[in-house]
């Protein structure tokens, strides 16, 4: 936040779909997001909400069969969706890199940690083996791996879960990216280790001025680490605001419902949780109108028919896709 912020990654009206045998199913619909240098943007939503897929598609690493159908992803003047595979590959890692959820499956079990970091470095930089090894040791030290001179030759199974995730972070920051996308980086980790990994990511962001995108379902982590938040539902952004505005004055019923559904460490005990009624949406058969309407406690007769779009509810970028947003905060 201390760095003067400028837009680094600009996702404009991105839509993504998967082609099935009979029809194409839209998975991400008209998503626009700006990521500024030095900030932490949290992306929140349940499984299947499109929060991860938006970024996979933006980087051109979406699973086979998943295609960008419209929109652009602007990074330093280039539209990433139009770059050829080689040009895009050189952007990934050096400009934008990603850390994934499961540190065990993201590492190759038959190569040492050091070999895997050195491979990343030498694929992109003109380094000798010895130079790359020295740099890899520095990186491990930077992510607080104890005794990095010795541990660099360890294999993934010799690392604990937290150390593996830190080794992956070392790889992700090896090429000094300007945007680091962390996809549920601590979901597989214990709570004490989770705290350490996130403190590390925040510290690296402050030191380097890179932008951090934190994809998560944990609202506690968002509260602690994020500057801005985008809430995804059914492949679209339904609310976007600063972290304070989103938590203290939510303006979409889905956001309010999320807060009511989670048990909190500081809430009064013996209060029943309020689950969101119904099931998560089937993207192949979305209802007309607002996709959240069938599960919404505030739904009115017109919600099933009117097309929703994100509107700025204030003059300081608090966006909501609920046309009845002015009634939402009174409900909370």
């Amino acid at each position: 936040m201390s760095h003067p912020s400028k837009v680094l990654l600009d996702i404009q009206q991105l839509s993504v779909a998967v082609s099935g045998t009979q029809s194409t199913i839209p998975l991400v619909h008209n998503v626009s997001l700006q990521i500024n240098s030095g900030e932490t943007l949290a992306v929140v939503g349940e499984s299947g909400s499109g929060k991860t897929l938006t970024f996979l598609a933006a980087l051109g690493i979406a699973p086979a069969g998943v295609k960008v159908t419209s929109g652009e992803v602007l990074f330093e003047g280039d539209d990433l969706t139009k770059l050829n595979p080689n040009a895009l590959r050189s952007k990934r890692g050096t400009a934008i890199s990603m850390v994934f959820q499961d540190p065990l499956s993201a590492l190759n079990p038959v190569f040492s940690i050091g070999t895997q970091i050195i491979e990343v470095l030498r694929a992109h930089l003109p380094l000798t083996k010895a130079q790359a090894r020295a740099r890899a040791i520095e990186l491990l030290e930077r992510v607080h791996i104890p005794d990095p001179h010795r541990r660099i030759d360890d294999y993934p199974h010799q690392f604990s879960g937290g150390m593996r995730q830190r080794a992956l972070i070392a790889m992700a920051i090896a090429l000094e990216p300007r945007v680091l996308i962390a996809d549920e980086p601590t979901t597989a980790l214990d709570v004490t280790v989770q705290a350490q990994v996130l403190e590390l990511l925040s510290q690296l962001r402050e030191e380097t001025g890179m932008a951090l995108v934190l994809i998560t379902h944990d609202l506690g982590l968002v509260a602690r680490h994020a500057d801005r938040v985008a809430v995804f539902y059914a492949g679209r952004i339904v609310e976007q605001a600063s972290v304070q505005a989103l938590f203290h004055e939510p303006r979409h019923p889905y956001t309010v419902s999320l807060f009511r559904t989670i048990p909190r460490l500081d809430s009064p005990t013996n209060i029943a949780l309020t689950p969101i009624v119904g099931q998560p949406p089937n993207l192949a058969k979305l209802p007309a109108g607002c996709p959240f309407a069938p599960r919404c406690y505030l739904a009115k007769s017109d919600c099933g028919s009117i097309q929703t779009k994100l509107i700025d509810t204030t003059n300081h970028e608090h966006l909501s896709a609920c046309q009845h947003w002015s009634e939402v905060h009174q409900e909370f």
Partner: protein
Amino acid sequence: MAHLTAAPLLELKNISKTFNGSASWRGRSSNAVQAVDQATLALYPGETLGLVGETGSGKSTLGRIALRLIEPSSGSVMFEGQDITHLSPRLLREKRQRMQMVFQDPYGSLDPRMSVDKLVSEPLVVHNVEYAQRQEKMHAALEQVGLDPALAHRYPHEFSGGQRQRIGIARAMVLDPAFLVLDEPVSALDVSIQAQVLNLLHEIQIRTGVSYLFIAHDLSVVRHISHRVAVMYLGRIVEIGTRDAIYNRPKHPYTVSLLSAVPIPDPVLERARKRIPLIGEIGSANNTPSGCRFHPRCPRAHEVAQQKNIAIQKLGATDIPVLCATQDPALVGSDTEQACACHFPHETF
């Protein structure tokens, strides 16, 4: 609500479990792992006891020992006043009607080739319930978990994660057990579905009086559902007590650190909170530290060592009390109020 004055439903007494590293392919035997070490626990009728701890703390092993799915190396398991530690397989199977388990993964724990009615009535078949009664009990169990019995001919893949977990609960409840072990029952579910399942478990307990041993790593979820909570570290219960005692007045430094690491979903409150980080990584169960097993990671040991009149010794570059490094602390206090295994349980910092 729990009846802590009644006789315990389940008692685990001085349970230890050592997994002997079997001879490896090179002919050497690897180190034995002490997964559970002298754990003692009582569960009362109608209560939920939350069992928390990091990966490798032995909480799942202890849960399986309670059902005798794993045999303890030493110690005894008492269920409904009877010692079942050495019960024969035939008699144990009879007892198992009264004790069931719900697993974490609603995808892996249901046979994909069995329809829901087969899945839910399978325990009835195993326990020789007459055919005429099976249908009735199966329907009742499905209704109890909020699933339409008209869907009973469908297969697991036709259900969502939350509905599958309901099938798992129906399967466990169909024999009307007195005791359920729930091993991470909601951690694979999305938050909106998690709340549905937690509310369901609460309703079932109110209606049937079943006791839960609720194993989970999410401390907010455990606080929500538990009457009492036990905290495990490297195979030992280091603190146990009522929900409010553990969450509002934790005494063990491990509990204090765990709770400080859980973020609260409020940016103002959360950013004002202080973390009390643990030192290093969780120790290894095949090389339990001397004295208090928590001492190498204990932030409090370092604080206490600064005080006057405390005998200290070196641990690496820092000082820690001799007591912590040499004496294994016992669990002191009442397990129905608050008990803690720490030499310096009242020190704050």
